[in-house]
C-alpha cells in the first residue's frame, strides 16, 4: 500500500536527483568543450542555460551568460530551484520527509549528497577549482543512489515510482540536450559537417557517457547515427526511447498491468518513436519533433498526477 503523497515524493525525489546529475553532466562537458576553443569569443555558455528552459530567469538575474555566471547559476544558486545545489537539497528534504520509506543506507547517501554542494561561493577561484570535482561527485553519487534503489528496494509500487521519475526526467533532459545542440550551437546550416560540428556532437555523446559506445559500434560521427543512438536506440539506458519504454514498464507494474490514461499516452508515444527512422526525424524537422515530444511527455506527467496523486484536482503538472 503506497500513499499518494509518498508516491509523489518518491517520484520527485528521483527526478531532482536525476536532474541534478544531468545538469552536472552538461556542465562538465561544456566546460571541457569550451576549454578546447581557441579564443574566449568562441566559448558558448548560453546553450547550457537554454537546456534548462529558464533563460528568462537567468537574464533577469545575471545578464549575458558567461562562464562564471552560468556555473554559478547551474551549480550553486540557492534561489534557483533547478540548480544542482537546490535540486539536491530538495531531494534531501523530500527524503527526510519519508524516512520510513527510504532504506537507511540510501537515505544516508541522499542526506550527504544534499549537503555536498555549498549554496554559495565567496571566492570565484573556488568554483573553478571545485566545479569539475563537484560535477563528477554528483554524477557518481547519483549513479550510486540509483544502484542502491535497484539493489535495496523491493519491486513494489514505491520502486516503480522511483524508476518512473528517473526515466521520465532523463528522457526530458536528453531531448532538451539534443534540441540545444541542433538549434543553438550551430545556427547556420552551412556549419553542419565542419570540424566544430563534429566536436559538438562528440561532446554531446560524451555528456551522456555514450561516446565510447558510439565509436565502438558506429564508428565515425554522423548526425543520423547520433540521432539514432540518442533518440531511437532500445538498448542504451539514456536514449529517449529506452527511457520512455522503461517508464511505461513501471507504469504497468504500478497498476498491476491495468492500463490507465498515463499508460495509453505513453504507449502511443513509444509506438510513434518505434515507427521512425533518424531520417524521418530530420525530415520532419528537429525543432518540431522535439516540441511534440516534450508536449507528450508533459501530458504523461499530468496524467500521472491525476491518476495517482490527486485524482480530482487538475494541476499544471511538471
Amino acid at each position, binding site marked *: 500500500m503506497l500513499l499518494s503523497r509518498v508516491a509523489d515524493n518518491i517520484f520527485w525525489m528521483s527526478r531532482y536527483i536525476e536532474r541534478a546529475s544531468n545538469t552536472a553532466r552538461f556542465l562538465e562537458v561544456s566546460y571541457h568543450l569550451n576549454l578546447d576553443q581557441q579564443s574566449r569569443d568562441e566559448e558558448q555558455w548560453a546553450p547550457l542555460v537554454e537546456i534548462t528552459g529558464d533563460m528568462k530567469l537567468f537574464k533577469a538575474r545575471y545578464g549575458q551568460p558567461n562562464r562564471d555566471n552560468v556555473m554559478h547559476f547551474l551549480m550553486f544558486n540557492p534561489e534557483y530551484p533547478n540548480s544542482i545545489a537546490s535540486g539536491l537539497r530538495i531531494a534531501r528534504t523530500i527524503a527526510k*520527509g519519508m*524516512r520510513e520509506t527510504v532504506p537507511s543506507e540510501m537515505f544516508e547517501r541522499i542526506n550527504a549528497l544534499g549537503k555536498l554542494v555549498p549554496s554559495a561561493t565567496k571566492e570565484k577561484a573556488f568554483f573553478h577549482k571545485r566545479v569539475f570535482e563537484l560535477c563528477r561527485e554528483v554524477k557518481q553519487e547519483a549513479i550510486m543512489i540509483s544502484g542502491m534503489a535497484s539493489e535495496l528496494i523491493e519491486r513494489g509500487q514505491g520502486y516503480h515510482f522511483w524508476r518512473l521519475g528517473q526515466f521520465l526526467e532523463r528522457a526530458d533532459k536528453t531531448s532538451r540536450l539534443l534540441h540545444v545542440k541542433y538549434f543553438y550551437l550551430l545556427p547556420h546550416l552551412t556549419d553542419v559537417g565542419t570540424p566544430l560540428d563534429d566536436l559538438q556532437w562528440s561532446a554531446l555523446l560524451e555528456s551522456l557517457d555514450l561516446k565510447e559506445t558510439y565509436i565502438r559500434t558506429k564508428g565515425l560521427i554522423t548526425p543520423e547515427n547520433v540521432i539514432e543512438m540518442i533518440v531511437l536506440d532500445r538498448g542504451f539506458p539514456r536514449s529517449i526511447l529506452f527511457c520512455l519504454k522503461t517508464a511505461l514498464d513501471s507504469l504497468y507494474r504500478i497498476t498491476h498491468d491495468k492500463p490507465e490514461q498515463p499508460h495509453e499516452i505513453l504507449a502511443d508515444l513509444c509506438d510513434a518513436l518505434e515507427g521512425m527512422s533518424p531520417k524521418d526525424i530530420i525530415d520532419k524537422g528537429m525543432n518540431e519533433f522535439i516540441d511534440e515530444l516534450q508536449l507528450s511527455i508533459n501530458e504523461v506527467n499530468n496524467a500521472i498526477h491525476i491518476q495517482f496523486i490527486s485524482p480530482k484536482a487538475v494541476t499544471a503538472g511538471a
Partner: protein
Amino acid sequence: MNFEGYETDIFFDELFDNQGQARDSASLLVNAIESLSDGDLQSRQDASERTMHSMGITFNVYGSGEGTERTIPFDIVPRIIDGNEWDVVEAGLKQRIKAVNRFIDDIYHDRKIIADGVVPEWLFTSSKGYLPQCQGLNPPKGVWAHVTGTDLVRDEAGTFFVLEDNLRVPSGVSYVLLNRTLMKRNFPEVFHQSQVRRVVDYPDQFMKMLHHVAPEGIERPTVAVLTPGVYNSAYFEHAFLAQQMGALLVEGHDLVYDGKYICARTVGGLVRIDVIYRRIDDEFLDPDVFQEDSYLGCRGMMKAFREGTVTLANAPGTGVADDKVVYAFVPQMIKYYLGEEALLPNVPTHLCCEKEALEYTLDNLDKLVVKPASESGGYGMLIGPKASQKERDDFAKDLRADPRNYISQPTLALSRAPVLVDDHFEGRHVDLRPFILHRGEDSYVLPGGLTRVALKKGSLVVNSSQGGGTKDTWVVDNPAGMEVV
C-alpha cells in the same frame, strides 16, 4: 581515562556511592572506561554524534534560519540501574498506569470516585484535557492511555519519585533505541557481561499492543502513525517508529473520512485505516469538533472514533489525567481503584488552588519549584532558588491571577550521573522517562527508559528544548560481572 577527582558532592550519584566507590551495578563499566587510553572515550563520543548526523537524526532549531540542524546531545557514559531496584519501579509504574486508566474511564462514565468523595469534582471540570465529547465512550479493551512516558527523579537518598505522567503524546523513545545501538557498538564486552535488559523489541511490543486494541473483528488491522509532518521537532521519531513497526506514516491530508471509516489516499485508491497512533494533540484531531483551522488532523475523525470504526491511541480525552493537579491525586486513585498503596511516591505537591497552599507557595517562592498544571516541556516553570527577585515577583502575580493553573513542589536535589566534559568527568543532574504500553489487562514497561541529563553545570532542567541531552540507560541483571555461561 579515569574518574580521579570526580566529585559526587551532596547528591545521589547513579554510578558512585558517596565514598567515591563505583556501585556494584556500575563497576564493570567503570573498569572498562578506566582501561581506555586518554582521548579514546572522547573520540567514541564524537563518532557517535557523527553517526547521528549521517543518519539524519536531527531536529530543526526553530527560528534560527535555514540549515540549522542539531542533534540532541548524547553523552557516552550510560546510566546504570540495578535489575532488582528496577523491578520495584516497574511494578510501581504498572500499578500507576492501571489506576490512571481506571480513573479516566470513571470520569467519562459514572464518576464514582467523585461520588465517593475521594477527589473533588472541580478536578476534572477544570482540567484542560477534559473532553465532554468523550462522555460515555468505551475505547477497545477499556484502554485510554496506551502509551505513557512517566518522568521519574531520585532525591539525595536515591529514592525514586514520580514527577509527572505524560499521557498525551510522550516523545523520546526513539532516542532510547538509538542510544542503545550506539552504546552496543562502543562497549560490546561490558554490555554483554552486565546482562543489560533489552529494549530492541519495543517497536514489536508496540505493534502488538496496537493490534490488540483494534476495532473488533479485524484480523490484520492496518495501522498508521499520524504525524504533524516533517517540520515537527519530533518528526524523526514518528518516522522511526512507523518504519520499525511497519506502520504507515500519514499526515492529516493523507486521510479522508468516507462516511464510515477513516481512509488513507493511496495510489490504488482509498484504503481503510483501523488503528491510528496519533502524534498530534486532541485539539488538532478533527476540525469539525475542535480547532476549525487545523490541517493536522482529519474531518470525521471523532465521529469514526465514537462509532468505533477506528481506534485512536492515545484515546482523545486522555489528557484529563495529564494535569499536574490531577497528578497529585494519583496515590488516592491507586488506593481507590486497586486497594493498594502506591509503590512509587509522588513528589510532595502543593495545589495552589487551595488557599493555604497558595499562601505557603507565595511565602516560599525562593525555595520551591512552581509549575503550570497543563504545560509540558519545562515551559512556564519557575525554579525559585535559581530565579531573580524580579522573576519571582512577576511570577507571584501570575500565580495569584490563576491559582488553579499552578502547583508547587520542593526543589529536589536531583540525582546526578557523570558526563564526559572535554577530558574529564563531571556530575550532572538526570531524570528518567520510562515508557509504558498499556494493553488493558496488563502493561509492558520498557526496561530503563530515556535518561535525560541537564548538561549545563548545576542546571536542573533536563528538557531537550532547553539544553538537555540524553544517555543510554542500562538495567543490569549481572552487576558483579559473573562469568556468563
